[in-house]
């Protein structure tokens, strides 16, 4: 069964450092997403991406965040200068075009710890 894969599974970084989280969505999917879950809290939408541009972003997704699909297969989330409060599990997800089932397929998450 096709799946969304994320790397790294866990990253520890110092405050102020840049972090790139990588995702490989399901190959025929066109819509890509990043969600965040701070430990013990609910899952929060960060950004959606379609046709090589951001479709929608939340208030959380400020100028420190950026997304990119550099090579047609990877979908990355960059945090330019990490803060302590960026510590969370970051989930990538993908879905087919609207004409499809629309179900979001989530990756297993990347846990980011900022010290």
């Amino acid at each position, binding site marked *: 069964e096709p799946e969304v894969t994320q790397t790294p599974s866990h990253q520890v970084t110092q405050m102020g450092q840049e972090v790139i989280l990588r995702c490989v969505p399901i190959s025929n999917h066109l819509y890509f997403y990043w969600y965040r879950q701070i430990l013990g809290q*609910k*899952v929060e939408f960060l950004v959606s991406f379609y046709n090589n541009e951001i479709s929608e972003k939340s208030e959380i997704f400020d100028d420190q965040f950026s997304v990119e699909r550099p090579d047609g297969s990877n979908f990355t989330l960059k945090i330019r200068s990490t803060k302590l409060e960026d510590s969370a599990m970051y989930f990538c997800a993908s*879905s*087919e075009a609207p004409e499809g089932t629309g179900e979001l397929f989530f990756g297993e998450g990347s846990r980011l710890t900022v010290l």
Partner: protein
Amino acid sequence: AQKVTQAQTEISVVEKEDVTLDCVYETRDTTYYLFWYKQPPSGELVFLIRRNSFDEQNEISGRYSWNFQKSTSSFNFTITASQVVDSAVYFCALSSGYSSASKIIFGSGTRLSIRP
């Protein structure tokens, strides 16, 4: 505004008991999708069900069943004959708009513990 409320923060039951997880949603859209996801201790999000706003038929899948009532804006989830492996955090979620590829708004989750 869109909102999902899971009033039950934690539930603990003994194995083999039935348990219902409540979910109440708010949206002004007439077309929307409701979801349930399971998050086991390992942390991944496991899709359980998706239901669109035009389909109020209840659904049963093995020991799982879902009750969707538009009149009360609820989408409750029942586990029959619970098992220890059902222990997890369960999230109800809402996606509004024409396509369920829209962003999903999650509830705060219900932590379910099944005691042997």
